[in-house]
């Protein structure tokens, strides 16, 4: 076991998968000689060379498309898009090509491509570097969308994503790259599907994904001091969504808060609420609560930025509301 940072976990997964299979390549802006904006591929250029650690020009749509094309003929590309905002430029190749080629070809051609990209607000990056956009990928048939909350999942899910035969979008977070966790030294894999109960509880379910799982855990600590037992659920996979685990938890606790960093309209929380309505409406003792970002482009000013996105206190307050205490 060793304490490993999120970025180190991603780098280790790259390294192992590239050693294991020579069809695995990595592509992205500044990932090679410069070592990667988040150091997720640092040192690998020297080890694997420019043919396998490919520095791309700033052409998101087409280098993503090149990775997708390569995946159609047996390659296993891991594509890094520096910010999920820039992934908007690649939506044509992601949504119109990668997500649809298997289906359009009657299952005859697969696109086993992995696209890693950080989404989320962090240290005053302002509106064009702070998008979340999980909801957009989550609503696209033909994609898998996963949101590792820490190094163990970041490593184990990336390894699974490389080996899986579907296009996988991995949404990371600017504020998580230096987050540390104890990690086994032996190789392991984490499944791409399935929500995880990261804290068991009986009075209320707090649902999060990506960075906001940590907000839920913080809120659960506060609730515990009030004598309230909160269950924290990490969705892990937004597509497909593990509705079964959500249902079981809500049937146990009867109250639920969904924390999302994105704006609320047509969002992850809206989808979870719909799933709860459809699957376990009569198990609810109170209306489900969404804790979410303000419906604004993310501001630069630090105070405004903090106000725009949810924090532990917001999730805690949401829980008190769901519990009928405020």
């Amino acid at each position: 076991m060793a304490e490993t940072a999120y970025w180190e976990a991603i780098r280790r997964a790259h390294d192992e998968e590239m050693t294991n299979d020579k069809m695995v390549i990595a592509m992205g802006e500044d990932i090679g000689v410069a070592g990667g904006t988040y150091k997720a591929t640092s040192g690998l250029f020297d080890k694997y060379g420019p043919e396998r650690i490919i520095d791309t020009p700033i052409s998101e749509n087409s280098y993503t498309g090149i990775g997708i094309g390569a995946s159609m003929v047996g390659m296993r590309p891991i594509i890094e898009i520096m910010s999920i905002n820039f992934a908007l430029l690649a939506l044509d190749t992601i949504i119109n090509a990668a997500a649809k080629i298997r289906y359009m070809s009657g299952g005859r051609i697969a696109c086993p491509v992995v696209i890693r990209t950080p989404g989320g607000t962090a240290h005053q990056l302002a509106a064009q570097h702070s998008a979340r956009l999980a909801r957009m990928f989550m609503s696209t048939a033909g994609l898998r969308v996963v949101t590792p909350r820490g190094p163990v999942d970041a490593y184990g899910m990336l390894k699974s994503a490389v080996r899986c035969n579907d296009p996988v979008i991995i949404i990371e977070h600017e504020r998580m790259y230096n987050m540390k966790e104890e990690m086994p030294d032996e190789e392991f894999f984490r499944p791409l599907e399935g929500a995880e109960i990261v804290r068991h509880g009986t009075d209320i379910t707090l649902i999060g994904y990506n960075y906001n799982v940590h907000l839920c855990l913080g809120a659960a600590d506060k609730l515990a001091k009030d004598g309230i037992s909160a269950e924290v659920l990490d969705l892990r996979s937004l597509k497909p969504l593990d509705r079964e685990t959500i249902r079981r938890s809500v049937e146990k606790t009867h109250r639920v808060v969904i924390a999302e960093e994105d704006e609320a309209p047509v969002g992850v929380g809206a989808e979870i609420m719909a799933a709860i309505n459809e699957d376990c409406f009569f198990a609810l003792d109170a209306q489900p609560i969404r804790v979410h970002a303000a419906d604004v482009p993310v501001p630069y000013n630090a105070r405004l930025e903090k106000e725009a996105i949810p924090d532990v206190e917001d999730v805690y307050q949401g829980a008190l509301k769901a519990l009928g205490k405020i």
Partner: protein
Amino acid sequence: MKPEDQKRLLREMIFYRRFEDRCFEAYMERKVGGFLHLYSGQEAVATGVLEQAKTGHDYVITGYRDHVHALKSGAPAREVMAELYGKETGSSKGRGGSMHIFDPTANFMGGYALVGQPFPLAAGLALGAKHRGEGQIAICFLGDGANNQGTFHETMNMASVWNLPVLFVCENNEYAIGTHIDRSTAVRDQYKRVCGYNMEASQHDGMDIDTVMEAAAKAIDYVRGKSKPYFIEFMTYRFRGHSMSDAKSYRTKEEEAEWEKRDPIKVYSRRLKKAGIISDADIKAMEKEIDDEIENDIIKFAEESPEPKIEDLTRYVLDDNPDPRWIGPLVNEGE
């Protein structure tokens, strides 16, 4: 080229023309739905270029006007027609339709409806081919209209920087749907547009299959031999409208008549007749044989094939038999 090969090429072009004429009829009979884009007039380009490629080995990719590229790559005509009919026996099991023919057994990697999208996909096929080192190249056919997409510039740049073995074939028919090239594009000669990417390029007559083959052979040798991209432009003309709903109001009858004189099938059959390789009677017999094959074999197959099963609606969205080691689901302990 041997006379029997010349006769075969003429037969192929006539077959493609009549196959697509029959697609048109099937569309009018409402046997075929969606959009239907026909290739009539441009046959010498796909036929001539792919005659020089190692079809089945090299990767081929194109836009939505894809029937002939698929057929010449080696996709069975029965399956292409069945795809238009939306049948389970179709190239894409009825899930793609006319614009999305796929046949990986022929390394025909698809028809795509997003104009310009195949540029990066083609470069990716070439990157994969280069990585595997099995001598394959990628061939990307697109029209002049696609060159106004950002993917054109982005991909030309990367294909050149990374020395990818990809042949970009520009079929310049002068119209981007219904807008003439002079009204949409700063230069009419498309091959000039890649000089900024340090890429070899040339322009040729696309109505004469001999010219196409000669130019394509050189370009393909270059791409395969040097593992570098090449951009080849063929000046051609689409005899029919962009798709079935197109009344061709944007061009004159005189212009159409001028181009029809250069019909690639007429040009080539005249040449073969003059050389004494084929006679009018031979061509008549050829046409009859083709029509019989289309009607009694291809159309019959498409008509009689089963539709996809309703219960299969959600197949092929993701891998239908995923490995649980990677997919899970995750088991929550202590529940």
